[in-house]
Structure formats: C-alpha cells, structure tokens
C-alpha cells in the first residue's frame, strides 16, 4: 500500500505543478497549489504508517497553515478583482521588465 500511496501522491503533485504552470486563472492556480499541498499530505499520512505519528502531526499543521494561506490569498485575489473585474493573469501585467 505504501508504494501505491506514494505514487498516487507524486502523480497528484505533478498534476498540481502542471496546472500551476499552464493555467492562467488565479483561482484555478490557487486550487492547483492546494492540490499539491494535499498530495504532500497524502505522502505524510502514508509514511506515518511506517514511522509513527510525526507524519500525521505534520498533516494537521499543513492543513491549518493552508487554511490561513487561503484566507490571505483569496483576499488578495478579491483586491485584484476590484481593479480588473477579472482574475485572469493574462490581464495582470502592469509589472514587467
């Protein structure tokens, strides 16, 4: 079971990375990041079967922090939406060098 879980987690993580790199909608990007975090959580839970509770404690921390991050992130996305009426990153291009 451990190997399968780890492979699944790697696949989920890869899907998340590909999503972040290819999609252009801020909300979808954010969802992909959350997918990556949950892939990591899956790894931790699977590994904690092997090593004891540390992995599960880590998962609790990750979920808590992700919730805090989501609060801040969505607030920032709303701030952008008020300026642009859009959360598409292609329209967000004031800053570039």
């Amino acid at each position: 079971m451990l190997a399968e879980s780890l492979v699944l987690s790697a696949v989920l993580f890869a899907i998340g990375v590909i999503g972040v790199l290819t999609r252009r909608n801020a909300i979808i990007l954010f969802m992909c990041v959350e997918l990556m975090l949950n892939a990591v959580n899956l790894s931790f839970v699977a590994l904690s079967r092997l090593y004891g509770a540390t992995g599960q404690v880590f998962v609790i921390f990750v979920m808590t922090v992700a919730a805090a991050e989501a609060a801040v992130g969505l607030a920032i996305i709303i701030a952008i939406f008020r300026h642009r009426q859009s959360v598409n990153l292609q329209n967000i291009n004031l800053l570039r060098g």
Partner: protein
Amino acid sequence: MTFDLMIPGQLIGALLPDVVLMGGAMLLMLLAAWRRESDAWQRVVAVGALAVLAAAAAAVLWMMRLDADASIGVIAVDRFRWATDLLCIVGAGFAIALMSEQNPRARLVAGEAHVLVLLATAGMMIMAAARDLMILFLGIELMSIAVYVLVAMDRRRERSAEAGLKYFLLGAFSTAFLLYGVALIYGATGTTNLTEIGARIILYKLADHPMLLFGVAFLLIGFGFKVAAAPFHMWSPDVYEGAPTPVTAFMAAAVKAAAFAAFLRIWIEAFPMVVLRWFGPIWWIAALTMVVGNIVALSQKNVKRMLAYSSIAHSGYLLVAIASTTSMGSSAFLFYLLAYTLATFGAFAVVSVVSDGAERGTQLSDYEGLWQSRPWLAVGMTVFLLALLGFPVFGGMGFFAKWYLLQAAIASPAPLVTLSVILVLTSVVSAGYYLHLVRVMFMKERDGAAAAVPASGPLTRLVLITTAVLILVMGVAPERVATWSRLSAIGPAPSAISSLGADTPELMPPAVDPAARR
C-alpha cells in the same frame, strides 16, 4: 546554562525572545484595533512595535550573555541563531521606522502593518531557531503569510495588489515544493529532526537514497524561490517594484536573511554528506544567480527594479558562502548579511524619500540632479551603492564583506576558484549600474519641470544616518564585527566528515516494510 528541551518550561525559556516578540505582537494587534484608524494612532502602534522589538532584542542579548546551550531537540540554541535574530530585528526596526513615515505620505492608514512586520519577524526568528523541518515549515509560513499581506497592503494601488497576487501565488507554489521535499526526506530517513537526519544518513548510508536526493532537490527548489536565486528569481523584480518601498526593503534584507540562515543550518546540520552530491547544482545556481542578476540589472530604468536585480545578484554571492560549507563560510555569510542589510535599507530609504510614498518617482530620471537639490541624500545613496558594490573605504564594510566571502570560498576544502572569479567579474559588471546611478545623481541637471524631491522625515533621516555611519565605521574597523561573526558561525560537525570513510555497523536502513514495525 543548558536548556533541556524535553521539559516544557525550559523549552519556553529557550524560546524567550520569540515568546516576547509574539506576545507583544498579539497585544499590539489589540491596540491597533482599539481606536479608529488614523495617522496619529498608526504612529502610536509604530512606537509600540519598536518597543516590542527592543524588548525582543534585549531578550536575545540576554540569552547571548547567558551563553545558553540546549540539548538536541526541535530548536537550536546557539550563537548563530542569536546573530540571525539580531539581523532580523534590526531589519524589522528599520522597516517600521520607514513605514511609519511613508504610510501617511502614501495616504495609507494601516496600523496593523506594523504588527504584521512583527509577526513576520517572529516567523524569521523561528526559522533561525528551527532544528526540525516541522518548526522550519511553521516559521516560513508565519513569515510568508505576513509578508503576502504587507506586499498587498496598499491594495487600492493596482501595482501593489498585483505584486501581492504574484508573490502569494509563487510563494504558495514554492512552499508546496519545499513541503514535498520535507515529506520525501521524512520518507527516506524516518525523522524530521535535522540532527537526527544527519546522523541517520551517516548511520544507514542513505546519502545516495533516491528518495532523499529527490527530497533535497525539492527543498532546494523551494528555498531557491524564497531567496530569489536564478532560475527561480522571476517573481522578485515584479514584487519588489510593486510593493510599498519599506516592505521591499524588508523583503530584500530580512526575509532573505532568514531564508538563507535556515537554508545554511539545514545544509550544515542535516546534509553534510549529501552536500557532496549537491555541490554541482549549488555551484551552478550560485554562478547563474550572480550572472543573471548583474547582467539584467544593467538594463533597468526603474531604480526599484534595478535594486531588485542587484538583490538577486547578492543572493548569488551569499550562495557562494553556502557552497563553501565551512564555519568560515558561515561567518563570512553573517558578516555579508549585516553589510547587505544595512546597505539595502539605506538605499531603499533613499528610494522611499525620492518616490514620496506614492511610488511615482522611481525612475532613473527622477534621480537626476539629486546632488543639487538634496546633497546629503545623494551622498548617502552613494555610500549605500558603493557598499553594495564592495568598494573599499567609501563603500565601508561592503568591501570587507566581499573580501571575507572570497577568503572563505578559497579556503574551503574544495577551493571555489572559478566561483570566486565569477564573483569578482560580476562585481565589476555591477559597477556598471551602481556607478551609473551615482553619475545620474551628481552629473546630470534636474529637469526644471520635474517635481522637487521632498525632504526626508526625521525617522527616515535617522535610518539613513544610522545605516551610513555604521557602514562607514565598520569599514574602517571591521575587526569587532568579524570576531562577532566568527564566534556566531556554525560549521559541519567534525564527526560528520571523519565518519565518511569509517566503518559503521551494517544496520538495516529504516525503509523496511511496515510489518516489521508492528
């Protein structure tokens, strides 16, 4: 005295500076919400924040005097931690001083910004203390989430909101990488404690375990984003340009210092063996960062962007210290961080005065004829730029910072000669943009139609004078600081190196099947 970290009371004792800072931040948060937001109230909160920082600094100094030590546990109690703490606290103090003056100019009423700086500093201090990947993660997130908000603080200005979004998305992305790295390292070694990881890698000969190598790679990518090392630097010029200037200075100096300090500790305490395998990638990242940062900075027209690229280049210089993996390297690293923090805050303080809080006057042309209108500002900026360049005497301690860095690079077990040559050559390239700005300030006439450069407020002036004087004084007498950084250095445990060839008992690696555990 020695703290036993297994006893809760002593653990709290070992975290005293952090507890002081966090408790103070919580109280200030209440204070900030006490009255209706106004410029006057914002100033009260800023004074409170400076007082809390002073208390935290006093706690750090007290711990330093105690020469505290601790059993092996989740946090480190050593002089490297105190040195990093002091750097971050100084950075936060400068940031709050600049912000309390720039916010009213930018018509930004946000007393909680000062509290957020405190919370970010608390995160940095936890990162500096972390000897466990879980604590490290909490520290990084405490810092990052506060800084996401700070960057987007001026949310009615579109650039600030955009910078906040970019920083948030890239920051969360890099955190996920870092976390996956932690998970894989945990999978390979069965622990998240740095000391334990180091011990188990040697004991079970895990240095070539693929899971560990992937874990370290992801960790490296995560940290690469955080410290803006090439090729993970793309976000930083945009974010540095869009964020309010005091926040940019805070990010360029303190956030980077904390991320580097945590990186260095992990590298030295957990992976002295693996480093041999990762020497190549670190070498290339350092070289690429120095080259990219300095070359691209040459073509910038916006001073904030230029300083952002220069800060990327400085990440490259600091990576040279990390690549040397010796205690000499980490002492050069601390000295460099101090010089860099002072010069960065000074330079961004000038930028914040010239741009008048509104973030308009950040183009190179806005600096034309600064020598005629605000001579001291021009002189100060010259000192900071020369310090960043590493010019002798007039650049103060910047010269010695680079000097010690080169010394450490050459003296490392595998001398980093090529990297040192790249460091020197790219520093010469950096003269191109630093001195260009100096030339613009002193030799060009100011356009008559351009708005006058406003006078700097008393606090900004204090920041400017403090940083400039410190840079110059330590440039004449660097010995004290050099001794301080030498005493605060951490190096790889001698046992880690000597046991490389030693015959360790053939034990089962921890990656056994789950049935054996039950």
